[in-house]
């Protein structure tokens, strides 16, 4: 029997697992989290049951039925706390155990078909003061609300771009916080233009639209002031957030002089879009397209034979697209084809939600002049505390044109997060010094051969226990 190995148990990975099982394959589903669900269905742990947990979620019943279907299936092995730390050709190296633990169980999987569904995380642009405690990514605030019932503050500002700011604000209000404002960088005209020029497309993506409009029109709507064409351009506080500066920005996101307004808050949530988690597909050799997502064909195949990709790593499109892509990827990985009858509904949904995703991108894409809100002192690389001024002075002094050398000259992106937070911003800011506007060495900050830290003692371990050998062969 064919084995399909799936990395990531978010909406895309869960849908892939269910489809691969329908298609008759055995499934191994790996996720580094303690439970399945991914970012969208992040939920309370089993030790904290709540009768109405579904209030925190959309599509909760879809999740419940997917999970029950897979958990009750002995040919679907779900391995949580499974940290994939390296991929070497077709060998998938995994440590199973507590996050950042020691002496975790080392395994190597090698399956004929692999589905990558590692999702995305918030892209947060550097802002003066963004390193203060009390500044959170929008997704982080959401994760705390859904997974911990923690509210990030009493008076909160949400800033950035994209429809995802709304569910974050909603969660905060439901948790009892006052959302002082949601500041969307895009201008109202651009939003209206994109959202309504082709109303028929919107109608077809009805569930997404209701969900999204739901956030602005439900019972909390009147408690969330939503302002467009504005951005959080500075954050102040002694050793935690005390206030934010919000400015009007032009279409390129450059702040407009004289429009600054200071607002007292105790927390700020920022999200300027999403960055796909590409290190594993890149390690497997999958080609990345010009938009910096994993390239897939109609069958969700990547450029590497036997390796499929689904969900946010192929393009930011939200839960419905992730589910459709996941189902197709799992089905094809098990031996089917996207053109098969039973995939019809998924194909249709995939097409619709891709159009929808393209609209989001065109409405909320990052403006090219965001760096105008930076000062010389603004921290760009949080791990290594490299400032904007330092990046610029080293780039000028060295006239270096490659990312590899510039990272080592400045230390930007060399810290323990491996450039996950600052990488793309650093590339952009340094590229501005190079004729042509971009670094020439083709080195990508998305490449991280060691995908998650591993203890030296775990690396030093000899892999000769029988349990390991048995897993090695999941073909």
């Amino acid at each position, binding site marked *: 029997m064919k084995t399909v190995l799936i990395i990531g148990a978010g909406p895309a990975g869960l849908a892939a697992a269910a489809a691969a099982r329908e298609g008759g394959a055995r499934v191994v589903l790996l996720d580094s989290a303690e439970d399945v669900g991914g970012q969208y269905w992040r939920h309370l742990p089993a030790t904290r049951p709540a*009768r109405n947990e579904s209030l925190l979620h959309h599509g909760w019943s879809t999740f419940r039925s997917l999970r029950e279907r897979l958990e009750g299936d002995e040919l679907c092995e779900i391995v949580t706390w499974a940290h994939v730390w390296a991929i070497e050709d077709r060998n998938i190296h995994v440590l199973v155990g507590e996050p950042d633990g020691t002496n975790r169980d080392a395994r190597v999987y090698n399956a004929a078909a692999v589905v990558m569904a590692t999702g995305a995380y918030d892209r947060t642009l550097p802002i003066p003061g963004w390193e203060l405690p009390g500044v959170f990514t929008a997704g982080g605030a959401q994760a*705390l609300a859904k997974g911990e*019932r923690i509210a990030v503050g009493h008076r909160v500002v949400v800033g950035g771009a994209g429809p995802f700011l709304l569910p974050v604000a909603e969660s905060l209000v439901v948790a009892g916080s006052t959302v002082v404002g949601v500041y969307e960088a895009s201008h109202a005209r651009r939003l209206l233009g994109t959202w309504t020029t082709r109303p028929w497309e919107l109608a077809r993506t009805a569930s997404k639209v209701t969900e999204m409009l739901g956030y602005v029109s439900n019972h909390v709507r009147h408690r969330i002031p939503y302002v467009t064409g504005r951005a959080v351009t500075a954050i102040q506080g002694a050793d*935690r957030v005390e206030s934010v500066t919000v400015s009007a920005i032009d279409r390129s996101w450059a702040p407009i002089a004289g429009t600054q307004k200071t607002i007292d808050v*105790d927390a700020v949530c920022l999200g300027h879009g999403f960055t796909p988690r590409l290190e594993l597909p890149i390690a497997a050799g999958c080609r990345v397209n010009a938009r910096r997502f994993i390239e897939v064909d109609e069958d969700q195949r990547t450029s590497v034979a036997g390796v499929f990709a689904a969900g946010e790593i192929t393009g930011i499109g939200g839960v419905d697209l992730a589910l459709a892509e996941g189902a197709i990827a799992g089905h094809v990985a098990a031996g089917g084809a996207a053109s098969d009858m039973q995939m019809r509904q998924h194909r249709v949904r995939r097409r619709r939600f891709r159009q929808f995703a393209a609209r989001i991108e065109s409405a909320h894409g990052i403006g090219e002049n965001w760096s105008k809100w930076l000062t010389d002192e603004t921290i760009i690389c949080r791990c290594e505390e490299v400032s904007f001024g330092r990046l610029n002075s080293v780039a000028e002094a060295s006239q270096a044109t490659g990312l590899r050398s510039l990272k*080592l000259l400045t230390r930007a992106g*060399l810290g*323990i997060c491996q450039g*996950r*937070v600052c990488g793309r911003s650093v590339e952009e800011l340094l590229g501005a010094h190079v004729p042509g506007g971009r670094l020439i060495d083709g080195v990508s900050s998305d490449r991280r051969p060691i995908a998650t830290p591993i203890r030296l003692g775990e690396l030093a371990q000899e892999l000769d226990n029988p349990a390991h050998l048995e897993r090695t062969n999941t073909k």
Partner: protein
Amino acid sequence: MGTYRVAAQIDSIAPEPATVITISVDGVAVDGLLGQTLAGVMLGSDIMAWRNTSFGDQPRGLFCGIGICFECLVVVNGQRDVRACQRRAASGDQIEFHRDLPVHVEDAESEGPS
């Protein structure tokens, strides 16, 4: 002001009673609920910073909340480099703060390449 755990009595999701656990944070006893992460327990008590940076000595706590940014590192029962937002808290856990100072900016750029 700051972070807080939503009180069960007023939470619309109607939580059932959960088990209280106690951990030690830099020598101070802090209560949380079984199933929370270390970050969740600390934020629930309005502890928002638990690390100081190596160059600038600046306070840091949780940023991304999903294991991406590594801002939330703590020392747990003597073990360094543990992401507080990922590790489940267990009663009796001893949390210490990473204190790596001082690394002087003057000579702080060495290291091989990436």
